[in-house]
Every structure is written in structure tokens, then in C-alpha cells.
């Protein structure tokens, strides 16, 4: 029983997320992303490591995609249409609806860059047909043993963390998530689960962010300043996610400040994406959701679509253009025209994949090579968006602490961040953590329970309340403390070729077909309670007095019943009138004639109690004697 985890992508890097986990023999592929920084074979995960023969259908039980970002889904059409995987694929409804837009957008960029097309639009559509959409918290039985469930992850619309369990082993793969709500999405939410493994992203594993609102204000101020001085603002984004979040922000700000500067969306594509957002509004934050009946927040009032001719039109404007990170396409084209002007503004996300123009801009260079033979003078202002839909260090630590899995694997981040996080998780939370490289495998044993059939009698006896009343002796008025210490005790039996059984001890004899042989202890002894005897009239009251004395010293001791018998568990004590009682073991010394005989018997479970009581009684005898002597 083990979990084996093969990291095919996003091991100590960001890009082409892909982890293949084998839980108790079932293989699940989490995410199937592409790396935006490469154009050669390195852009896709090395699928040959899953199956040398390429028979992925038999190797993999299912593929799970967490959200529609290309570094999580980009290789999926390639995997299904080119590599030939035809098994089940799961993703949330919004991911299924939005992923084709994302993929096709990227495909167009690739074609536009003159690269070889990896998959066609038909490939994308065929691929999406094989996808089963799931809802948050819906529990899906993939096959007899494998069960998966999505949890809300924030990050982008439809992003989910996935829980998977096979038998007693369970794990969670987070994908990208956000522990704080943003303009349009809620915070990640998950149940307290018992996990063997948590695979979490760690993009911002070493950053702790303060309030988002200050950063949003910064962004709005930068945009406002730029358009106020007649400049143009270029916001390169992917069609979905960030575009909508920023647009909600700007649309709202435009409304409040009564600005008339046009906001453009670069292609019809993004406006169409807004339609999806409107229908899928139940996947956004509570605040946005609540307003659906009156005004859908994705009905942007100030947004128009952009014509190519407007690139050189005079006057200020704000333009959302795809793709993000200036990795090519229209956004890069506009960048070429707008970057040389110092009044203009380019906003870039906090994280750009290595190899993109956006990444090169990080170094505050004044010149940038956009391709082999084009160099652009960058004179415009650059604003780094410091709010990100990823969780920060605190968020990751909170999630790990909340879930308290047995093991943690960190993916989707730089090695510096990972090492820092790994150290904190191991030292502060005491949880094993790993940051494997791409194509490395990590494995560990999993939780396993021995299955047994328990008899109803055993279960019932275990569930019987067993109240213990304790009293704080120090203060008289202290309330009585009641605790319920249930005893689970039974007999486990194993017969060759049969399931393990658990029985109540009374049932064992029937099972083995024998009668119980009891082994008891008995002892009959005299006490010369002459002093006491004067006051008591019958054995009942004698027993009552004796038991009163015993209970002073032996806590468990109870009250005698009316028959003159004291019984605690199996221990029985009574006055013995039988002069021939066979349990009167004399040690040779003479028995005083006026002594009263007490006969007791018990079974082995109560032997300690029995001997304690007997010794208390014998002491009582001598103390009474000494009293009588003194008189």
C-alpha cells in the first residue's frame, strides 16, 4: 500500500504542471500543462515515462485538470489527440467551458508566430468532448475504488483543488489556489480531510502580502495618471481570469470617477468570455453572486471592442490585449508600437514565465529584443501588478497546517521558495516535505486499515456509555465531573480462508463450541468484631457497617444490597454461616469462637481489588481488637 508520485512538470519550476500519482495501484494524472518558455520538446511533459508503449488508457485511471491556465491544460489536446489517450478526463464546469477559448487563443498565437501547430481547433473540440464536468464538492466514483472530489480554489474562475482516494489512502492536489478572496472570486475552501499526501503549489512560497486594496489603488492610480496625461495603457492578459478581474476593477473605478476614456478589449474573444462569466456567476465570490438578479457584474458598461486601426488613433485609452506576458500575438504587436512613447503605460503581472518578452522587461532595460531581428526602445512606464491570484507563504502554511497531511510535495515554484517552505513545514509542522525535480519520483507508504467483521454484540458493548463520576475533593461545592470512558474490548479471531472477525468475549465460546470453565477464587475468613457486634442486630447492618469502612479506603467499593451481600464487579462478600465452609483455610492458629466469618469469591479480573479489600478488613479486625483491649 503506497503512494508513488512522478513529477512530470512544474518540479522546481513554474510551467507545464503535470504530476502522475499512483495511489494503491491507481494512476491519476493531475494537470497536463505546457511550458510557455520553450518551443521544443521541453514544452510538454515527458509522457513516455508513464508508459513506454504509449498505451496510456491502461496505464492511467483518469486525468484531472485543475483550471484553464495553459500551464495546467496546454498539453491536454496533444495528450488526447496526438498521444491517443481516450480515458476519462475531469475538470470543473467553468474549466470545461473556458478551456477551449484559452487553448484556441494560444494555438492562434503559435500559428501567428509561424511555429508548427501542435494541435488544430478540431483537436481542441474533440478533446473537450471527452471531458466530464464536475461541480464543487460533487463526489465522483471514477471506478470501483477511485473516488475524486473538487474543492473551490479561488485563483481563476472554476479553479479547483482535487481530492482523490483509493481504499484508505487519500491525497489532495491543489493546483493553483488563493486563500484570500479577490474582486470576483472567493477564497479556497476545503474540508478537514485525513490525507497521506498534499501536493501544493508554491509560487509565492517566500512572500507575505499585505492588504490587496492598497495594491489595487496603486494600479488604478497608475492607470488614471497615464490616461489623464493623454497616454495609452496596455494591459496584456490572457483572455480569461485576470482580464475580468481588472475589468471589474476598472469598470467600477470609471463609474465612480466618471471617466469617459474608452476601455477596449482586443478581440471579440474576450467579450465572448464575459458571457461565460455571466452564466457561471455562481463560481464567483459571494458578493458578486448576490447581485446577479439586479445587475450581473460581468455586464461591463464601459467596455468596447478594439479595432486594429485604433492602435495609432490619438488620445488616451486602456486596452486589454491577449496573450499575457507579451509572449507574442496581438499584445506584442501593440507593445511594439506603444512602448517607445514615454506617456504610455504597460502593466505586467508579478510573474512572467522565463523566455517571454514580459520576463525580459523585468530588468528595467531600455531596449528589448522582441524577436531575432527586432529591437524595441522601451521608454513607456511599466507597472508591475503586485496582486496575484496565487496564495502567499502564509496561505500555504495555513493550508498545510489545516490539512495536516502525512507528507507534502511542493511543485510550481522556484527552488529558493520551495526550500524555504520545506524548511518551515518540516520544522514548524513536523510534516515530511519534498520538492522533487521534473521526472523524479517520490514514494511513501499509505494509511491502511485492517478490515474485520464485528459482531453486533461487540459494537453494542463498545458503545455502551461507561460513566465515571469524579469529585474534586478540595472544594465541597465543586461540580461533579462526569466522564464517559467507553471500553472497547473484544476478541479478534482469524480462521484460515475467512475474514477477520471481532466478537464479544461472551460469543467466543459459542464460536469454538465449548463451555466456559470458570476459574474462581474463594476465601472465607473470620473477623472478631466484638465491639461492633454489640450494636448490630443482624447481618445486614453488620455488612453495611463493614462496607462503609471499606469504602473509605477502597474507592470502587459499593453499597450492599438488601440480601446482605456486597458485590463489586465479580467480587462478592457475604457473612458465612456455614460452619463447614470449605473455603475456611485455617493456618493452624485457633479461630476465635465469637468471630464472624466472611466468605468472599471473585474471578481473576478483580484479583487486585479482592486482595485489597481482604487486607483492609483484616486491618479492621486488628484495629477493632486494639480498641477493645484499650477499653
Amino acid at each position, binding site marked *: 500500500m503506497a503512494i508513488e508520485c512522478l513529477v512530470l512538470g512544474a518540479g522546481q519550476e513554474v510551467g507545464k504542471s503535470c504530476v502522475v500519482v499512483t495511489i494503491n495501484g491507481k494512476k491519476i494524472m493531475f494537470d497536463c500543462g505546457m511550458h510557455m518558455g520553450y518551443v521544443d520538446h521541453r514544452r510538454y511533459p515527458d509522457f513516455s515515462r508513464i508508459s513506454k508503449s504509449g498505451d496510456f488508457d491502461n496505464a492511467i485511471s483518469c486525468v484531472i485538470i485543475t483550471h484553464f491556465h495553459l500551464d495546467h491544460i496546454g498539453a491536454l489536446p496533444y495528450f488526447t489527440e496526438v498521444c491517443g489517450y481516450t480515458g476519462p478526463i475531469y475538470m470543473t464546469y467553468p474549466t470545461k467551458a473556458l478551456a477551449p477559448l484559452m487553448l484556441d487563443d494560444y494555438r492562434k498565437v503559435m500559428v501567428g508566430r509561424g511555429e508548427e501547430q501542435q494541435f488544430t481547433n478540431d483537436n481542441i473540440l474533440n478533446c473537450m468532448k471527452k471531458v466530464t464536468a464536475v461541480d464543487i464538492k460533487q463526489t465522483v466514483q471514477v471506478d470501483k475504488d477511485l473516488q475524486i472530489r473538487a474543492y473551490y480554489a479561488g485563483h481563476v474562475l472554476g479553479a479547483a483543488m482535487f481530492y482523490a482516494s483509493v481504499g484508505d489512502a487519500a491525497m489532495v492536489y491543489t493546483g493553483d489556489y488563493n486563500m484570500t478572496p479577490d474582486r470576483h472570486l472567493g477564497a479556497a475552501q476545503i474540508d478537514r480531510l485525513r490525507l497521506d499526501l498534499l501536493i501544493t503549489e508554491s509560487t509565492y512560497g517566500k512572500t507575505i502580502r499585505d492588504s490587496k486594496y492598497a495594491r489595487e489603488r496603486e494600479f488604478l492610480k497608475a492607470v488614471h495618471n497615464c490616461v489623464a496625461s493623454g497616454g495609452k495603457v496596455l494591459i496584456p492578459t490572457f483572455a480569461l481570469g485576470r482580464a475580468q478581474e481588472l475589468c471589474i476593477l476598472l469598470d467600477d473605478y470609471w463609474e465612480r470617477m466618471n471617466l469617459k476614456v474608452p476601455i477596449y478589449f482586443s478581440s471579440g474573444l474576450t467579450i465572448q468570455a464575459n458571457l461565460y462569466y455571466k452564466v457561471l456567476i455562481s463560481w464567483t465570490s459571494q458578493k458578486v453572486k448576490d447581485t446577479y438578479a439586479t445587475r450581473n457584474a460581468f455586464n461591463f458598461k464601459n467596455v468596447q471592442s478594439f479595432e486594429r486601426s485604433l492602435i495609432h488613433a490619438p488620445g488616451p485609452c486602456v486596452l486589454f490585449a491577449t496573450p499575457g506576458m507579451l509572449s507574442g500575438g496581438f499584445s506584442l504587436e501593440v507593445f511594439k508600437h506603444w512602448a517607445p512613447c514615454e506617456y504610455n503605460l504597460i502593466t505586467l503581472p508579478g510573474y512572467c514565465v522565463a523566455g517571454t518578452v514580459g520576463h525580459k522587461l523585468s530588468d528595467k532595460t531600455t531596449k528589448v529584443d522582441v524577436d531575432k531581428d527586432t529591437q524595441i526602445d522601451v521608454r513607456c512606464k511599466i507597472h508591475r501588478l503586485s496582486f496575484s491570484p496565487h496564495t502567499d507563504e502564509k496561505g500555504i502554511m495555513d493550508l498545510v497546517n489545516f490539512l495536516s497531511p502525512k507528507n507534502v510535495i511542493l511543485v510550481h515554484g522556484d527552488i529558493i521558495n520551495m526550500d524555504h517552505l520545506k524548511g518551515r513545514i518540516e520544522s514548524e509542522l513536523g510534516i515530511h516535505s519534498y520538492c522533487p525535480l521534473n521526472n523524479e519520483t517520490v514514494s511513501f507508504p499509505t494509511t491502511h486499515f485492517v478490515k474485520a467483521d464485528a459482531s453486533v454484540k461487540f459494537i453494542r458493548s463498545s458503545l455502551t456509555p461507561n460513566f465515571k463520576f469524579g469529585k474534586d475533593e478540595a472544594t465541597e461545592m465543586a461540580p461533579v465531573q462526569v466522564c464517559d470512558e467507553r471500553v472497547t474490548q473484544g*476478541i479478534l479471531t482469524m480462521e484460515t480462508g475467512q475474514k477477520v472477525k471481532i466478537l464479544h468475549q461472551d460469543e467466543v465460546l459459542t464460536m*469454538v463450541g465449548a463451555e466456559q470453565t470458570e*476459574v474462581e477464587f474463594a476465601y472465607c475468613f473470620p473477623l472478631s468484631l466484638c465491639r461492633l457486634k454489640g450494636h448490630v442486630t443482624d447481618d445486614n447492618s453488620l455488612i453495611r457497617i463493614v462496607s462503609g469502612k471499606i469504602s473509605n479506603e477502597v474507592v470502587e467499593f459499593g453499597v450492599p444490597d438488601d440480601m446482605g451481600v456486597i458485590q463489586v464487579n465479580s467480587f462478592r462478600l457475604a457473612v458465612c454461616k456455614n460452619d463447614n465452609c470449605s473455603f475456611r483455610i485455617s493456618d493452624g492458629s485457633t479461630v476465635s469462637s465469637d468471630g464472624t466469618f466472611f466468605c468472599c469469591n471473585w474471578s481473576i479480573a478483580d484479583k487486585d481489588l479482592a486482595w485489597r479489600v481482604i487486607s483492609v478488613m483484616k486491618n479492621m479486625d486488628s484495629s477493632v481488637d486494639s480498641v477493645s483491649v484499650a477499653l
Partner: protein
Amino acid sequence: MKFTSLSETGGYNLPPCNIVNLCGFHILFDCPLDLSALTIFSPISTALYENLNEQTFSCSSSASHPKTEKLLDKNNLIPTEPYYKTVERLHLWDVSLIDVVLISSPMGMLGLPFLTRTEGFSAKVYATEVTARLGQLLMEDLVAMHTEYTQFYGPKETGLLQSLNWDELEALPPTLKEVLLGKDGTELGSWLSLYSATDVKECLRKVQSLKYAEEACYNGTLIIKALSSGLEIGSCNWSLKSPKRDVSYISSSVFSSGTAMDFDFHALLGSDVLIYSDFASWNGDTCVESENSSSSSVPVDCSTKSDNAHAWELQDFDESSEEMEKLNFICSCSMNAVKAGGSVLIPIGRLGIILQLLELLALHIESSDIKIPIFIVSSVAEELLAYTTILPEWLCKDRQEKLYSGNPVFAHEELIKEKKIHVFPSLHSHELLMLWQEPCIVVCPHWSLRLGPVVHLLQRWHADPNALLVLEEGVDTDLALSPFKPIAMKVLQCSFVSGLKSEKVPQLLKMLQPKLILLPDYTKPYFNPLNESLSCLFFNENETLSVPNPNKHLEVNIATDLASQLTLSKLKSEELTIARLKGKLFVDQAKHYIVAEKPTMSSKMMPLVHWGTVDLESLVLALEKIGVKGSMEKVKDEDEFGSNVLHVFEPNKGLIQVKETTTVISTEDENLASLISDAVHSLLNGI
């Protein structure tokens, strides 16, 4: 497990109400209101017109024929603020004993505020997100419509029960009396005056909403899952997993619908007990194979009967196409009425039907040369329609495909934008009056024809022979229409699919392979012949049925660390290994677990149960080995079994009495006692 049927189904609008006791928890399935009973009250405007014409009619009519049984006409309807008929037998239960309430459909929720406002109510209520929302809208609409009523009658002075004396009760027409008192005359106590908007709000706060197939764990013991039933958007069947057994509950279901997600049967497969309560479209005639319809008063019956039960397969069967035929028929009837200058009134309460009907009507209007408006009048219509556009996850495949291809899932959003459909909260809103034109098509509540805009519109159109009224089946048309007589307008009564057809049920049950099926008693003649392949148990209304459990054992999960600590001992005689197990038992996610107790008890555990025989000779030998000596003696006791006694004298005095099944050790030396007992135990099997 115990099962009690509190009330049987009365069709789509009145789901059955049942209570199950599982693992000691009382689970209530649905809490409906019988709104068809509203028909015994006289609607607002009739009373208004009557009042204008002939003063207080109720006094005059009851005074003129005090003791004779009256015929059913509009004057016999009860002219008070309406009361609402709840499930009579639910009142016999102590509300505080109910642990869980499961709501399968919005209709099953309408009586819930009565329950949740009762003192002592502490149950957890589960419903799907959509059922909870739709249920809330239905209830809010009901409260709003009722308020209109009270505005007419003024503040409540006398309730229904005070206003009727016994004589008047006796004098009611038999139809009314049956509705009021129930078949056995005991249901007068089930009438309550409506809850308030606050009650509804409070009720909703107690509902925990679920997604389809979300696992909700109640008290660690029950895993509750709602699974699409296909009846209506968001309505569901239930799967309950408990440590003892798995129970499935099938409420009214439809295999495939034009709006709601398909019937999801996967999670219902192979349960221990299947409670089958979908008899909404059950007619007793099925088993006798008779075809004649009992309701002769129905002017037009558009239900088509196609009998291809033999070739039926679950996946292929398409009820929605049959349903589309009916809807198209309604549309063409409507168009005919409109062409003749009459208006169409559609007081249908079924969301799925209305949504499809709106799309079809728009198409029909589009393709004809007349342009007429469609009005939707209801206090919650706007919100309801907006809500339906944002729940693609709950819809059927075709609708979901529309989402993926970037089209609106329902057409009404566009139609409203294009001003082909107009939505208004009430009839007297100014904008409506400005836009009003006849003929037109109006969709409005309420199907009982006693509340809401429908009352006013019926009053307006009932005498127009060109007008058309579209009703759903399940309403007693004669009674429902009585206050509006004489009626010249056409009446079209439609039966929509509101449950599985009875001829499909055995096939479904066979496929689901439950170990035991619970069915109502009246289906006995139908299911008894199938008893060979299906094991069925039949229940009567309001009778508690104990459901036997064939499982003698429960599965328990033992933690590996505890299992590895066990001291296993092989029994001499058999192929059996036994061990004493001590730990902590707990229930989580409907499973039993035994884990090691925190401080691991290292002390050697003494065997507590012994069997086998103590052979005296061997005992003496065993004792000698440890240095205990004694002498044997055979004693005849008073009882004839007799015993052997071994007197011990070294190292101390003692006595061992050996009988067939008991061995008694007696000595005053504690050490000696344990030495001897060890020796005895070595001769026995023990655990």
C-alpha cells in the same frame, strides 16, 4: 431500521412524506403542503363580486337550507382566508425527535416553515442548492399571494375552524367535506394558517444546501448524498450510507427531461434497502391493463399514450420527446385561440415546463404572422428567471452543451431583452397596464386557481369562448373551476411526466439490484408476481414497519498500529488464531474504526474467558513443577456432580476445588493464589 409512511404521494405537487429511523436517527423525507386543498376556499374576486351583488352570501345560503347536503357550486366554497393543509400524521410526531430532514424537491419544502418554527425543532435540513432557492421563491410567492387575500378580508378575526360550526361542516357538499376532513374524517387538525415571510426566512437559515453527489456527513454516522432525479431542476433522490446499511430513497423521478439533469442511478446501485416512493404517475389500473381514463370532465386530453415498454432501455428511453409533443400541442392550441382573438392563460407551476413552453411559444409566435406579447406575472418571476440562467451545472446535457458553445442555456433571457416576453411582479403594476393588449398569453400562478393573478384573469376571460385556459393534471377541474362558472373558455388539461411510469419500475428496480425494496401496500398485486426476482416489503400508510437486517456483522477498520500490537495465540484444537483486542472505537464517515488507545497498555493482559477441562493429574504435575504440593481428595457434595479437591500445604495452606466447569482456588496467600491460577490456566484454553 424502521420505516413509517406519513402520507402518500398526490402527484407532482404533493410528494409523499415518510420517516425512516436509521442507526437511531429519525430522518424525515419531505414536508409538503397539499395546495390542491385550497380549492375549497372561495377566491377573492368571486367573493367580491358576490358581495357587491347580493350581500353576505354565506349566511343566506346556509340559513336557507340548514341541514340538507348541498350540491357543489360556487356558493358552497368556504369564504374565509384560506388555511393550508399540512401532513396530518406529521403532527403526531414529536418534532424534537426528528434529527434530519431531507427535501427532495421545491414542492417537498412548502410545509417546512411550519416545522422549523415549532419549538424544539433541532433537525438538520438538507436540500440541494437549487431546491432550497426555488423552494424559497415558491414560498415567498405563496406568502405574497396570500397577503393579497388577507388585504381583502382584513385582519384575521376568526380562523377556519372557528368560522365553521359542526352543522355547517355536516352540510358541506361531500367533495368539500372530503378535502376538509380527509377520507376518514380525521384531518381537520392538519389545517394551519399560513406562515409568515419571517418564518420562511428563518426556515431557509436552517437548510444546509448541497450540490449533486456532495457527501454530507451527519454526526459521523450517516453519509447523505443528493442525486439528480430528473423531475425538476435541482430535485433529487437520496443515498444514505450508514455503518449498518446503505439506503436509497427514490422520489418522483424522470429518466430524461428537457431541462433538469438526467436521473442519476449510479449511486443508487446495490443498496441494502431501496425505498421506492415514486408513485406520482401511478394509476391503479396499470395492473388490470385498462385504458379508459377516469376523469371524464377533462375537455381535452393531450396526453399521448405510446406503449413500447418492451423495447425500453434506460439510457435510450426518451421521455423528453414525448413531453415536447405535448408542449407543441399546447402551443398550437394557444396559437389557435390567439388567432380567434382569445387570450391564453397558463397557470402552471412547474418550472421546467414553463421554461420550455416559453421557448416554444416564442418560436410559434415568431413563425406566425401575428405578434402578441407574452406576460409573466408573479412576485418572484424576475428573480426566478434570472436564477435559471446561472445554474448550468444543474441542467440536462443539451442545455449544458449550449453553455459550452457559448449560447444562453435558456432562450427567455434574450426574449425578455427583445421585449417578446414581459415580466411583472403584479397585475396592477403601472407598466403592465401601459403595455397591456389582448389577445395575449399570460403565465402566472397559482395552479389551484384560488390565489394570485390567475383569479383576476379568469374572472375576466371565463366567459370568452375564444380564450384558452391551460391546466396541469392533478387539479380537480370541476371544483377548481366552480367559482368561475359558467365557463365558456376552452380548458386544456395536460398531464406532464411527473414520475416514472409504472411499467418501467420493475426494470429499474431489477437494474438497481437492491437487497430489499420497500413499496406501498396498494402496489402488492403488481409487484407480488415479481417477488422471485425482487425481494419486496410492503407498507401501509401510517404503520411503522421494521425492516429486518440480514447483515449480522458490521465492517470495522482496525488501525495497523493497533493490529501489529495484538498478541496472537493459536488454539490447540483448531485452525483458529485469536487475540484480545483493546482500543478505542469510533464512527467517522459512516465507518467504524478501532484505533489504539493513547497510553499503550504494556501490562500483560490476563485471559478472562477460559474453556477446556482441568485434568486433576495434570494439575498436580503442573503444580509440582512450580513447587506447590498437595494431596488429592474426592468429595461427594450434596449436589450429585461431586468434585475433586486438592489440599495444598506447601508453600502455604490452600485448597483447589475442581468441578466440571468451575475451579475454585482458595487460600489466604495472594502469591500462592496466583501461582495456582497460572497453573490452572496453563491447562485451559483462554482469552
